[in-house]
Structures are given as C-alpha cells and as structure tokens.
C-alpha cells in the first residue's frame, strides 16, 4: 500500500502511458489516475501508476515552515554544537 517513489515524467505516449525516470531507472507508467500530468512533472509512482503529482511549491513551503519551527524552538543549525 505504501511503496511509492517519486519519478520524473520524460514523455507522455499513447493511451496515457508515460515514460518515467526514477533515479536513473525508467519504466512505462500509466497516467490513468492523473491524466493532467505533462512531461517534466514529478509524480509518485505506485505499482506502475502515477498516483499524484508532486507539488514542488508545497515541498519548498514545508522546508520553510520547518525552518521557522527550528527558529522558534531554538534548534542549532547543522554543524553547530553537536547533539548527543
């Protein structure tokens, strides 16, 4: 239920079958569940289907929110005083 990996859509072929690159490994992946995806998008691949488009803007936003949390809780940056 859980194994899904991010991949980059290289090209969209016939019948909503796309060629997707996952870290240097390529496979045909069905876009049946996310038909609006285009080449260049990143998608989550699960059992040969794209489940969802990965939202880069949200990824960036999460990183920012996390940085704010660290600042609020006074967590030292990496390379700072080492934690036990």
């Amino acid at each position: 239920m859980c194994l899904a990996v991010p991949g980059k859509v290289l090209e969209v072929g016939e019948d909503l079958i796309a060629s997707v690159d996952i870290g240097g490994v390529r496979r045909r992946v069905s876009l049946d569940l996310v038909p609006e995806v285009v080449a260049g998008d990143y998608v989550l691949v699960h059992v040969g289907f794209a489940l969802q488009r990965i939202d880069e803007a949200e990824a960036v936003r999460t990183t920012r929110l996390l940085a704010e949390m660290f600042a609020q809780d006074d967590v030292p940056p990496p390379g700072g005083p080492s934690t036990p």
Partner: protein
Amino acid sequence: MKFVDEYRDPAQAQRLLAAIRRRSAGPMRIMEICGGHTHAIYKSGLDQLLPEGITFLHGPGCPVCVTPALRIDQAIALAEGPGRIVATYGDMLRVPGARGSLRQAQARGADVRIVYSSLDAVDLAARFKDREVVFFGVGFETTAPANGMSILRAARLGLENFSVLGNHVLVPPVLRFLLDAPGTEIDAFIGPGHVGTVVGSQDYAFLPRDYGRPVVIAGFEPNDLLEAVLMLVRQQAEGRCALEVQYRRAVREEGSPVAREVMRQVFEVVDQEWRGIGRIPASGLGIRQEYAAYDALRRYAGELPEESPADVGEYVCGAVVQGAKSPLSCPAFGVGCTPEHPFGPGMVSSEGACAALYHYRRTSPGKEAQP
C-alpha cells in the same frame, strides 16, 4: 534523487531529533498505521533515537497481514485450475493459507507469476488469449484505484479471459474499530501518507474530532517521519489536538479526484473479514455487479472454497496486527513461528511487527526490545 535525498539528509535528521528532544513534554504512544511506516522506522532505527517516552505501536495498515487465509486458499484453488495463470504482487507469494502458500503451489506446478503492476496482468491476458488470467490484487485505498483500473482497461480491450480476485480494505473503519475497543492505549497517530495521496487528508479528521487523538499524515523517508513526530510533540506541548499534514508535497485535502472516481466506479463498500480480527462492517471494497464478469469470486464461484480452517483461532496474530499486543506475548513467537516457518502474516511480511521484532531480538540478545 529529487524529492528523496532531501528527506534522507542525516544533518537535517539530527536537527529534527534535537527539536523533538527540546519540545517533548511527556510520554506519547504513537500508532503508525501503515506497514510502510513500520518498515521505514525499523530500517532507519529512528525509534532508538527518540526520547524514551515516545514509543511506537504498529497498526493494522499491512494489507498482506490482514488478507484472510481464505483468499490465499481461493487464489491457490484458481491457480491449480487447468490453463490458468494467477498473477499477483510479490508480497503475497509466501503468505500461508490452509494449504500452504502460492509459492508452494507454484513449486507443485501451478502457473503463478509475480507482476509489478496490475496492468502487467492485463497484458498477460491480452497476450495469452487461450489462458484464463486471474489477478490476485490486494491493497488499501492506495492500491485499490490501480487494481480497479485493470478492470476498466480489460473492459476497454474487450478481454474475456481476465478477472480480479480482490481483497481491498479501508483504513478509517479499522481505526474506529480499534479505538472503540475498551482499553486501547493510543495517544496519537501517524497517518498513512500514500493512502492520503489518494483519499485526501479529510478522511482522517474524525480522529481528533470523534476520538480526541491528534494525527499527522506523514511521508516515508526518515525525515518525514521525524518531522511528523515533531509536529505531534508540538501539539502535545501546546495542548492542541488536530489533523495536520506533514506530507504536503503529495497529499492534498481532496486527494486525487480521478483515483477516487475509479474506486467509486469499480467498487462498492462491503463488510469485510480481516485476518486475525474478524468481520468489520463496511470496511472493504467489493467489485460492483456491473463488472461481475471481471470478479473472480463470482466468475469461479462453484470452484472456490468458502471458508478456511486457517482463519480460525489466530487470536494473537490479530491482536498484534491491531497493535494491542506485542509479538512477545505470543507463545509461538520465535518458537513454532519464525520467518523461515511463518505461522501467520505478521512473520511473513517483511514489515510485519513480528518479523521486524524477531530480527531485532535475535541479534541483540539480552536487550529486550520495547514491545
């Protein structure tokens, strides 16, 4: 790898751990629902690094573990029929039923094949028109749309030799079942990230609303999980109880509308047997009548067993799957039941609580693992 490496960065993990330690206000029993999260926790060892009061309970989100033995028996019966091909995900191959596993049936000569995608099973049917292909498809809401899509594609291709033996289960009903049982000691939840991708985050709003338990829907890399724990710890420290999404890059509030529509089109909600737990009403998905031709249960009704002796009496397996008991409390654990000779799915599935604990305990003699 983009969208992966960033979430495995060890320096960031140390910051997250430091933040957790600073904010942790007391003990917290967190249930991670999804088997993939269980696996990720053990693989990274992050449970060892959290403050002592934060413990994990392993939840029932392992579709392999909760598939009734009857389904395995039915899959084997189908595989042994003449001219049949049974195609399935690798996970199911070694799960024991009453007559052994699909792997053992394969060794006896049945044509059982591993596929990576349900569409590969459809391809087999298109290629081998003289064979009957049965796709044994299990899963939660993450996988149900993909499995259901195989029926829609087969219908579009006009294939008459393809059907699905399905075992599809839903997460919210089993969580309610767990929480309604007396004595359940769960303080918070880590919600299933890839289920959330399909169904959306709102499916889990009932946890804080009806049961007063906070839930954070998390991704699967170590830093995703650490961030989710941090978010729960902060809620605890601030006296909040809410649904939050850590896995924002993949989980939208509304999920994936097309995937949900496929599920609605092909399946309907039915009562469902959960291995080791029993019957939970409205907790599973059955194939709708209009796709009866693709439903192996209807198509082959005459030759399928209707109950399995292996489904009776596995009370401890069920309790473990529900996170209510530790595998350590099972008299068979490590004695009769080992990964080499699994008695139940908790030991066969690599993410099952039993298998994970068995390996940890065996190689750390004298160090009792936390249940």
